């Protein structure tokens, strides 16, 4: 049996599966209970599992992320919802100073089975601080894993994998894709690998690497370029820390031209890391410089201007063409 569901439904189904399978799993967050979360990702779960397992917390990101760390010590496996991307900033100290360090502080003996779900990114015409892409803060913080799905199936499979991982996982949900389309998912999600990228479109002339909502943009660019006769490979990075090094090297070696897309600011962004890895390890295989199409080094603009800041199909096409013409 399978169903056709949106990404936000897939997240909710995966959470229900996790709560059902593991009595130690517990959800914490703001408005996630009766209200089902502001995006309805947890709709119906409190009615199904009760207010002690799907917990509406006070408005205190540092407090409930910190409490989730303490819960891990006594054997629970918390999954925390941060309501919007930028709301995670008050909890940053708990994540950087504690969550990422805990296994290291026990000489490897005890990790924190903690998942932090963060709906993130722009393109939804939201108020200020509701459109940030803070993934690089976490991919630069030791001890955390950072992942981002880009479709309903991977959303469910990666969430189940994150909950089983045993180390803190920052699970970035591209909220712009929450209801973008439907995809077939099975009754039960199987945990996927947490650190493998995926080729989502084969191609041989230029490769576009992206994650989250930018995969859709990359696919749009690939269509456009294909119409002009270029064979474009699109790689969904999925794992932002650690990056899938083998996939990066294979892609560069086989294709030779690479464009990296993300909506987070450019400076010290993930694209910079990808470019650095490629030039360190497979420089001789690169047929053109690695190009970046990213957000700008400024606060994410108020929404009337957001389309100018977000990487667009046209910008990605131009970058890919530049590498093809190099």
């Amino acid at each position, binding site marked *: 049996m399978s169903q056709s569901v949106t990404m936000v439904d897939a997240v909710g189904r995966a959470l229900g599966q996790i709560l059902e399978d593991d009595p130690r799993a517990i959800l914490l967050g703001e408005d996630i209970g009766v209200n089902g979360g502001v995006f309805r990702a947890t709709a119906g779960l409190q009615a199904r599992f009760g207010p002690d397992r799907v*917990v509406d917390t006070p408005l205190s990101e540092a407090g409930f992320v910190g409490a989730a760390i*303490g819960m891990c010590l*006594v054997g629970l496996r918390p999954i925390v919802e941060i309501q919007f991307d930028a709301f995670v900033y008050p909890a940053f100290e708990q994540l950087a100073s504690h969550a990422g360090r805990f296994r*290291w502080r026990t000489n490897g003996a005890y990790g924190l089975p903690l998942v932090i779900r963060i709906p993130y990114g722009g393109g939804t015409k939201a108020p200020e601080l509701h459109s940030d892409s803070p993934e690089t803060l976490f991919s630069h913080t*030791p001890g955390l894993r950072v992942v981002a799905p880009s479709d309903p199936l991977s959303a469910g499979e990666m969430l189940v994998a994150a909950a089983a991982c045993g180390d803190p996982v920052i699970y970035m949900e591209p909220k712009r894709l929450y209801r973008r389309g439907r995809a077939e998912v099975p009754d039960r999600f199987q945990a996927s690998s947490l650190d493998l990228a995926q080729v989502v479109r084969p191609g041989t002339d230029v490769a576009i690497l992206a994650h989250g909502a930018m995969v859709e943009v990359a696919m749009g660019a690939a269509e456009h370029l294909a119409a002009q006769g270029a064979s474009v490979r699109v790689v969904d990075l999925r794992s932002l820390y650690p990056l899938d090094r083998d996939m990066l090297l294979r892609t560069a070696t086989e294709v030779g031209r690479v464009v990296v897309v993300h909506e987070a600011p450019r400076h010290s962004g993930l694209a910079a890391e990808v470019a650095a890895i490629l030039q360190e390890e497979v420089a001789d295989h690169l047929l053109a410089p690695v190009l970046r199409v990213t957000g700008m080094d400024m606060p994410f603009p108020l929404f009337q201007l957001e389309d100018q800041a977000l990487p667009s199909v046209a910008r990605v096409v131009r970058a890919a063409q530049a590498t093809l013409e190099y």
Partner: protein
Amino acid sequence: MRELGAASGDLAPGAELMEGTSTVLGLPSDRRREALAGLGRSLVLELFAAMARLRAFDERAVILQRQGVIGTYPTYFGEEAVQAGSVLALEDRDWLFPTYRQNSVVVLRGCPPEVPLLLWRGNPAGWHDVQALHTAPVCVPVATNYPHAVGAAWGSRLLGEASVALAYGGDGSTSEGDFHEACNLAAVVRAPVIFLVTNNQWAISTPLRLQTRVERIADKASAYGMPGVRVDGFDVFACYLAVREAAARARRGEGPTLLEAVGYRLGPHGTADEPSIYRDPESARRWDVWEPIGRAVKALVDAGLASSDELAKLGADAAAEMRAAGDRLQDFPLPSIGEVATRVYKDTPWTLGADRLREPTFREEG
């Protein structure tokens, strides 16, 4: 055991701060003797021995720092009563969330003293066994351990266990956002947690009056709908009783307690601190009469519960134990940085692989 306004008049310096604290040692002598006898000789000696071991650890650590055997060290001279009283008032299943100032409380739970000393020596062997000791790693940021304790306590209750969590902190920590968030969350979910704040009047150089406008930290509890209790922080017996009572409340399902242990930082903030820059050494020294071990000796001898020789021997034994622990520090091997790199994640990612530790070479050149 709460005794309002009972701090005795012969301990003039700071006595006004002790107004309204629960106390045993501050009781008039006949009632003090009676209270100590009520605790029983074996318990009072156990509490005294715990203080003696903490003191000996602290003194040894300062010596080892001066000798260059360990690095900078945050002394807790004068806080032994709060630490010993609280640890002994709890059960082994209860969780402790110490800060750097309570860095050796694990020793009272059976951890070899070498372990916390090694932490200050900068050796990863200094990380104690968190699960075996039910004690979180020493928390270096101020106040971030409070939410952890709330989660552990709340989580225990959700799991149907009756364990309690206790988080330590100081007066300065109550100005941090995490203190507020933790108190609020704990009260809302009725977490069985104790916030044990030692108000020693100083946060490095910042006095309490620059930290907060309330004179009593315990008053902050009312904003969260939980009890705020003040206890004489130089009185191990009072601290023991106050924590025991807060733990009993928590176990009965009555939620958190903010416990203010009123004291004074008798020593520097740490081995790198020079208090004479910011506070008058003369007025600081007036507080020495409250020093918790000397105060306990007087009371126990007076109550006929122990001889001064017997108590001195407990101190000497503890000093010998800690000296021996210090002597063994150099025997502990250091792991390689490559080994430590494999202790960050359950499945070590390629980013922490052995090849990342070497200087890069270009493949063609071998």
